[in-house]
């Protein structure tokens, strides 16, 4: 257990370093983009004097390192600052959207992870059967279509006939049941997109183990195939499966902007895109940090869990 704690602390420290590097890279990249907030906010209406006045008010006339330093010291004190464009506190802007994004990610994960595991285990159990082929073909076609295409197909089938809403409107007053109903279609879309990866990994990891001598032994002593897979193969296959699940969860948090647009889902992705196109650097930075943290934390969790499932790693020293 001690080893795991040390690992967690080390990884968290490394994670902080990663976040710092990410923030520098994002800041630099946004600086490289043509135009700044003042000119994009005014758009076609930007006259040089107005842009200059807006820049002065927003502090954009300061050199880049000065602005970065001001931002960094703010963040270190827990202050994400205010959005340059809307002049609202960024923490407030992010809170609702982050909640929505995490809700959708968990919703999709709650559908996709059990589905992928069950399909993967069954496919491994009945490998090369008709079921295996159909499940593989179905999952692979779902992942091969672009997300928006799947989304439109689902809208055509399930929204235009009136079963589910095509547009997600969430409010804090809604009950959990209403929220689940309202966001069913985006969750289903994401489920279809991420299931294949996890299912294929489950199947491959288990089949890989089924060839090993100890499984042979189990089979020879007459254990049922299902019990072999669940009791003997799966525990040893968990490490790669957990890693794949973590990667897909991170994707569900960071990469769903297309689905957000199609279903008008108010998540972080759309906010990120808007903020980049308007060069609202403080918001971009905050969201980038959230996304980076999601990757860092999920990878850490995956590593910890894989270590815990593997006694050999636990007693390395």
């Amino acid at each position, binding site marked *: 257990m001690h080893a795991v704690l040390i690992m967690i602390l080390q990884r968290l420290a490394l994670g902080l370093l990663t976040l710092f590097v990410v923030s520098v890279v994002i800041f630099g990249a946004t600086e490289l983009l043509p135009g700044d907030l003042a*000119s994009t906010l005014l758009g076609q209406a930007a006259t040089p004097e107005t842009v200059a006045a807006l820049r002065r008010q927003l502090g954009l006339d300061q050199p880049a390192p000065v602005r970065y330093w001001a931002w960094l010291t703010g963040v270190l004190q827990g202050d994400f600052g205010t959005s340059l464009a809307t002049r609202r506190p960024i923490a407030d802007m992010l809170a609702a959207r982050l909640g929505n994004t995490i809700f959708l990610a968990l919703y999709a994960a709650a559908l996709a992870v059990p589905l992928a595991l069950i399909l993967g285990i069954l496919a491994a159990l009945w490998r090369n059967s008709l079921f295996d082929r159909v499940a593989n073909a179905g999952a692979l076609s779902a992942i091969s279509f672009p997300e928006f295409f799947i989304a439109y197909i689902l809208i055509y089938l399930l929204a235009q006939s009136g079963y589910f809403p095509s547009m997600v409107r969430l409010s804090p007053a809604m009950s959990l049941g209403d929220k689940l109903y309202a966001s069913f279609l985006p969750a289903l879309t994401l489920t279809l997109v991420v299931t294949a990866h996890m299912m294929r990994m489950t199947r491959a990891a288990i089949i890989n183990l089924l060839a090993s001598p100890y499984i042979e032994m189990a089979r020879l002593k007459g254990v049922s195939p299902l019990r072999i897979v669940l009791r003997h193969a799966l525990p040893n296959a968990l490490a790669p499966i957990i890693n794949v699940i973590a990667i897909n969860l991170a994707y569900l948090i960071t990469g769903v902007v297309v689905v957000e647009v199609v279903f008008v889902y108010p998540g972080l992705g759309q906010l990120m895109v808007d903020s980049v196109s308007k060069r609202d650097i403080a918001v971009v930075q905050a969201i980038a940090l959230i996304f980076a943290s999601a990757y860092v934390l999920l990878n850490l969790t995956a590593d910890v869990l894989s270590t815990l499932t593997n006694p050999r790693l636990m007693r390395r020293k």
Partner: protein
Amino acid sequence: MNNTRNRHGVTRRGLLKGATAMGAAGLILPASYRAARAEPQQGGTFRIGLGHGNSTDSYDPGLIDNLYSQVFAAARHNQLIEVDADGQLIPEIAESWESDDGQTWVFRIRQGVTFHSGKDVTVEDVLASLNHHRGEDATSAIKQFFDPVTDISIDGQNIVVTLEAPNGDFAYLMSDYHIAIMPSIDGRIDPTSSDGCGPYVVESFEPGVEATLNRFPDYWKPDRGHFDRVEILAILDSAARLNALMTGQVDLIDQIDPATISMLEAQGAANILSIPGNAHYVFPMDSREAPFNDNNVRLALKYAIDRQQMVDTILGGHGAVSNDNPIGPANRYFYADMEAKTFDPDRARHYLRKADMESLTVNLHVADAAFAGAVDAGALYAETAAQSGITINLVREPNDGYWDNVWMQKPFVASYWGGRAVEDHMFTTGYAAGAAWNDSFWEHDRFNELLVKARSEVDEDLRREMYQEMQRIVSFEGAVVIPMYNNYVMATATNVATPDQVSANWNLDGFRCVERWWFA
């Protein structure tokens, strides 16, 4: 006398009564026949899905730059002056205005109007609202309107604006949608506040997602603001917008893809409103640079475009051909009889030869950020121009940063104008020498001379003549190809009723659908 009266049973009063009843019946019958349309009804939640709206939108009226913020502003604010559905100025917070010489303008401020916060609208509030767009530190998009203003002062219940030179259309400029009347706090408005004196009170606003508003019970206009509640949603994806309307999740959407209009019409589930206005799509050239500095080349390019085909394919027929004229059919002095430029490859070659050229090769920089379908329009232009010996190389630019890096940076690009209610406003913003958005960098002495003269001309006929001459100059000597006026196309649920006349001045009934429309 008594007998006569009794026998016929008619008295003078009785006769009058009967006549009134008959007259009233005559008036009532056709009115009740059209009641569904003509009698506004109170109530309902009006849900609007717009293809605009960013997470970066704010309450600041000076920074309103997209349809979402424009409609949202029209729902919560009033202005000094309103443009009615016929394009005429009508009083709003200014109950009257006048100017003897066009240089000093007096706006009389209406009394008895209150803000949502309960405070009365005063002259000081109006002064602060105007000053928000004026001065060194102003960040308003319409700062240049106030450049010629030398002084704004209070005189009793009046606001007095003094200009450095006469401008007969100044009142029109004051009808601009950026000039929202907001409460003054120590002489300045608070641009982060939602307080206004418009028909609806903001309940919540999540930029880029949705705004919800409830009817303001103390709204001063008795016959406006018919909905109990308004919800404005940002739905950027056009298919999502269409789905939302078809599945009954919204009652009004904008920016319908021309390809889907006929499908919507066939389904009968929605009403299509296609409103011709002054909005137009343009291809400005940099008139300072070769080859565009030669008017013959410009004319060749103008005759090498098939305008009708543009309207048919790019706009799906929802628009009209423009004769390189930034003044639209909804303008007062629109020059409808100007000699039309048809697609004429021979004529284009003729002008090329006059410019001592056998063939011409130019780059046209386009992105759909310029207008919906700009890339297709450019391809179509290249196709037709080839028949005149003109090679147009289409350069696709990214949407992101288009207005910074392409528009007014590259010599031949695509762009759009929302159109303006006043000729002077349009010309001064886009065609006057040195104007900030003179995107063809065009200077024409006679045009600029007329522009100044027409502003202070009081004789209506002379004024019309001057504006028509200016339209001719822009059309035949200007450096902007203007192939078409695009209609404002929107779709509503079948139970949404509009007045008979929907404004052509800006989209969505001059942004005021929330105030003027109702549920039948």
